[in-house]
């Protein structure tokens, strides 16, 4: 069964450094998402992306965050200047479309640890 793949599985970075989290969505999917989950808490929506542009972003997704689909297969999340509170598990997800009823397929996540 096709999967969403994410790299790296774990990223340790000094506060203030830039990080790029990478995702390869399922090939025939058109809608892409990033979520984050702070340890022991719920999954929080960050951003949705379609047709090479952001379709919606949450309050968490401030100017330090950006997303890109640079080459038609990868979907990246960049955090420009990391803060301690950015430590979390980041999940990429994709779906065939956004119509109600379409399940989102999640990757295994990248655990981001900011020191």
């Amino acid at each position: 069964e096709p999967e969403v793949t994410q790299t790296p599985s774990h990223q340790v970075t000094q506060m203030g450094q830039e990080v790029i989290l990478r995702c390869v969505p399922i090939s025939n999917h058109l809608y892409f998402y990033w979520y984050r989950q702070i340890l022991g808490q719920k999954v929080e929506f960050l951003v949705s992306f379609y047709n090479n542009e952001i379709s919606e972003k949450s309050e968490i997704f401030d100017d330090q965050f950006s997303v890109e689909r640079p080459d038609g297969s990868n979907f990246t999340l960049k955090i420009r200047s990391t803060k301690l509170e950015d430590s979390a598990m980041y999940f990429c997800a994709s779906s065939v479309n956004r119509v109600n009823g379409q399940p989102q397929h999640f990757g295994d996540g990248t655990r981001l640890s900011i020191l």
Partner: protein
Amino acid sequence: GQQVMQIPQYQHVQEGEDFTTYCNSSTTLSNIQWYKQRPGGHPVFLIQLVKSGEVKKQKRLTFQFGEAKKNSSLHITATQTTDVGTYFCAEANGSSNTGKLIFGQGTTLQVKP
């Protein structure tokens, strides 16, 4: 903003006992999806409910959507150790139409063998 409340936060049961988690919203939900996250894993889609009063079953799992579309429940009959994990409800899209999921806080199920 949109909020989906889920209770209980934790549930410990003996293997063979039943388990139920509840999801509530103060506003009418357009739909409700249920996901399961195993310890250390990622959310995995279980099912979606769209219609008022809808009931769907998957083996030992029964999902319900309230008549007013403001609440939903997941019931597991005769739990097994493989049921361990966190169960999340989520509304898809909500007031927007971008596909985003608004998750509840989740219910973490522990099953004692």
